[in-house]
């Protein structure tokens, strides 16, 4: 029996206003959701004002869709509106179940307990040079990247969660819990240029910082973990309407776990202490934020600029999910091997 898919409508709006005209601008957009075995795009459109002089669509080296836009005339503002309709299937690892009540603070309705997985040291050994077979798709996400350092400080921080012979997924979940407990969400504390070592020292930041920190911990242990950029459905308080524009673009991580389902990536959201499932919509993944920044550009002129970003994620009405089961979308990675969906306690 197909489990129910959840259908969403997403609007991601970005507006730049420049103090003086920009004569030349080049923008790289990671705003088109990638297809995954648990997620399928039904409709997608990017509207840009002013109209670009030149455009190109391609897949980046991680197979994320990317749009390349050039504006070769003076302009004072740039508005980009990406609109997607897509559906997400539950995709927690098979065997995930509700945890016995622990009384700990979490954002999830019920704490979840992940299925058994190999001891983390065995995973590290399987990813080390000399081990066979070589899993290149994991090795890509095992080393330093622009925002993620590999340092003993991070390994030391992770050590409390990564106790000897602890199963990888359990240890990763404990690390997520620790970051969630000890770090404060504070949009004023950091910028995208804040080094991840300072985040560790100051224990404050936003979702990108927590994702980078968790990646630094995992990679410093010799594990493979990638950065996931996407959207989060913020559950509105009961009885209140959804706040338009309150939802923001989000980031979490995914760790590579051999043996479970023949080797797969498992998502963790350290900002919310959640195991991402149907409330998380995947946009793109890479080594860190630098690989998948939603809008990355170089402009000539413009002086100061103002930037406004608004993301609205709306679940579509239940009746529209009737035909929601993803067909094997053409071009979707892993489409033929759609993962079995667990009896998640949602």
């Amino acid at each position: 029996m197909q489990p129910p898919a959840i259908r969403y409508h997403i609007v991601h709006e970005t507006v730049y206003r420049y103090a003086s005209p920009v004569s030349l601008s080049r923008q790289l957009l990671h705003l088109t959701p990638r297809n995954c075995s648990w997620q399928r795009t039904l409709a997608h459109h990017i509207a840009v004002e002013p109209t670009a002089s030149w455009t190109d669509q391609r897949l980046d080296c991680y197979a994320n869709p990317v749009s390349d836009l050039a504006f070769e005339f003076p302009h004072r503002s740039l508005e980009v509106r990406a609109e997607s309709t897509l559906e997400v299937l539950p995709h927690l690892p098979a065997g995930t179940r509700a945890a016995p009540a622990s009384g700990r603070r979490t954002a999830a309705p019920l704490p979840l307990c992940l299925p058994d997985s190999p001891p983390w040291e065995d995973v590290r050994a399987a990813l080390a040079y000399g081990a066979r077979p070589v899993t290149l798709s994991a090795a890509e996400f095992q080393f330093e990247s622009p925002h993620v350092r590999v340092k003993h400080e991070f390994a030391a921080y992770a050590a409390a969660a990564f106790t000897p012979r602890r199963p990888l997924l359990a240890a990763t979940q404990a690390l997520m819990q620790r970051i969630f407990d000890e770090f404060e969400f504070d949009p004023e504390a950091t910028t995208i240029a804040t080094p991840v070592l300072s985040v560790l020292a100051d224990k404050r930041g936003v979702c990108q910082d927590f994702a980078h920190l968790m990646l630094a911990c995992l990679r410093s242990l010799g594990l493979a973990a990638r950065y996931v950029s996407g959207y989060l459905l913020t559950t509105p308080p009961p009885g209140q309407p959804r706040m338009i524009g309150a939802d923001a673009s989000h980031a979490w991580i995914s760790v590579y776990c051999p043996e479970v389902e023949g080797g797969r990536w498992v998502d963790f959201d350290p900002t919310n202490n959640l195991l991402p499932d149907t409330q998380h919509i995947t946009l793109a993944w890479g080594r860190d934020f630098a690989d998948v920044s939603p809008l990355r550009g170089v402009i000539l002129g413009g002086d100061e600029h103002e930037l406004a970003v608004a993301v609205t994620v709306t679940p579509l009405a239940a009746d529209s999910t009737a035909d929601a089961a993803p067909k094997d979308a053409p071009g979707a990675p892993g489409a033929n091997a759609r993962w079995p969906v667990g009896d998640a306690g949602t």
Partner: protein
Amino acid sequence: MPRSLLASYPKQGDRFDEMLDQDGVVRPAWRAFLGHLDAASGEQMRHRCADLHRRIVENGVTYNVYADPKGADRPWELDLLPLILPAAEWQQLAAAVSQRARLLNAVLQDLYGPQELLRDGSLPPALVYGHNNFLWPCRGTRPPGDVFLHLYAADLARSPDGRWWVIADRTQAPSGAGYALENRTIVGRVFPDLFRDLQVQHLASFFRDLQESLAAFAPQSNEAPLIVLLTPGAYNETYFEHAYLARYLGFPLVEGQDLTVRGDCVYLKTLSGLRRVHAILRRLDDDFCDPLELRADSALGVAGLLQAVRAGKVLVANALGSGLLESAALPGFLPGACVKLLGEELAMPSVATWWCGEQAALEFTIAHLDRLVIKGSYPSQKFDPVFGNQLSSRRRAEMIARLRARPQAYVAQELVNFSRAPAWSKQHDRRLLARGVGLRVFVAATPSGHVVMPGGLTRVAAVSNARIISMQRGGSSKDTWVLAEGAVNPFSLLKHTVGKADLVRGGYNLSSRIVENLYWFGRYSERCDKTARLLRAGLSRLLDSGADASRALLAAFDLCQALQIVPAADAAAQPAEPSPPATAGAAHQVLLVQAICGKQWGDGLAGGIRRLLWVATQVRERFSLDNWHAINRLQHQLQCYAQAAGEAQRVELSDALAFLDQVLLAASSLAGFAMDNMTRDDGWRFLIIGRRLERLAFLAASLGQYLRLPAASAAANLEWLLELTDSIITYRSRYMARAQILPALDLIVFDDANPHSVAFQIDVLARDLDKLAHLLGGPADPALHSARQRLQAFDVGRFEADDAREADAARDLAALLADLALAAAALSDRLTMRYFSHVGGISHHTLAW
């Protein structure tokens, strides 16, 4: 016959000696050369050393040392004696290095393609995915002809048994080929007969091959391919080489801001618009090349370049991402990769290397730390090599802890034994020193295979038992003479046959930035000339005594103040009470001397000269060598004077005047070069316009101020005014009388045949600007024509009348000239806006989440 040089040459120790065999006998390839040295007198050798040094200084061969607090260019260190290699040995060496170039190209082809080397475990993923020069966005990009390494360099060292080893690979943007060429140019001229008699192989054909292969690999369109040399700028350590190679290869030297990507094509910004660029020989590091997709903080790159490469619209040499192979950890994996990719055994070994990411290698390294050197696996680590045998027991324990904590970041290497070669002592008349040497060999990829430069850059250690040779650490260099077996191919790049289709006229490929700098070069050189002239006019009045002289001094001093060449009266440190005339002269002297060389970098005449030198650096490849010599001489003179002035409490008047004479001589030779020695292209036109505009602005401002002086018509003052405007000879030949105001003003202001008059500047400038508007399109500028009319309408006869009317005339003419000075400044702003506005503006990076 002088004593043989061998008598004092240190005998063999534990190293290979390039000149002597193990029995102390001179090797055959060196016999003729040593014989020649033995026969030469101390006097002859001193002469050769001086010749060598002079050529280095005059050619401006420099190497920037980052650590130098002044960031100053350091003269290139070049030893008098070449390294000599016999033909047979060279052939083997060249074949091995050529194989290595093929191998490394194949490795890059694999790593940016199928990655079989990673899949089958031949290479650790850590050395690729963990390397900051693995450019992820370049995955799957295939350069034309699958050539990644258009120019490759290997650093070689020779072990005591005489075998050559590779100690490092330069795959990103190898430097040194230009220095090797420059070394050859200099040393070949110091020993012209020996060079010919020994049949030394020439280098030029190597550069032609490089030139032709870039053109061949570049994407084709319906025009001759435009190839540029991309430099990070004048502050790069090897900038001299960039400029030198650009000029030698005939490629425009450009910076990132000179290029722009439109759509997926790369263009050079020129005065006549955007010109398509087909190939870029880059000296910019991989990750700096495109701020859009690579390092966002790079101000040096070209946004969109990667997409142009992916689209096949531009060739970048070496291919973006080729810096991946510059890792100390890689050599250990090359023997296996060579068999796998080429089906051959690796011909020349690398220095033994253990990558600590492998458990066994880590344990070996820790056990044998005493005889190993530890290096970082990745260039981004900026980890200085650590010699195990130099560690205290505490440091040793720390190093081992670091190795265990992050083993994949470290590499252990066997200590390198450099061979020794004779170097000429700078301290003695006739003395050979033994110095450690390493050889950098260059390989170019051509459509028909790899070619090796028959020669190379020999690097010389500061001591004989060196473990590291580094130009950054005070090493020196040598020319490398590879002897030919048969006849030498006398080809020279400069005589390369040009067909009618290759003819190029004009300077269409000048970047707008270069043109703007030439414009300012014109303005600054004229400004230095005029400032020096005015200061000399003032200071030389101190040499004379008498009322006339002191009146003239005061007038010249007032003019200096009005033009803000010396500080205004209230700001100047004047003695509080009125001083007797003698000390007044002394105070003026102090202030005028200070105006030559102020305390701050940009102050005074010296500041003007420094600005001139700075813009000259920006356009260095546009100047002939002779022109550049004049600029270098000026820099040298300024350094000497500034140093002497800084040390002495009080500068002698004669020294100050001598320096001003030097500046004026330099300025007039620069003017001469500009008139006679530069191609009449748009760049030259702007340089000349800059000179004229500056002269007009100076004449108008200074004459306007002069006419306001109380004693403007005094003969003593008119004398120095005529000196200042370089018109004294003409005046004397015309009038043979004491200077009078009417004929003086006629000559300096109104005479349109005097190249130093106001009218002349306006006429010539108006003509040049009209021509420019005609060539580049756009309306002519009316400002000068109306200024000329006002000047023509002024009746110079008014100065013939009595004192009262003469004062009126002076006031009117002063106002007219002041307006003209303002008009000249406004004109300069308009020129900048019109022709250079697209140059300015640094791109910056934006990010949204």
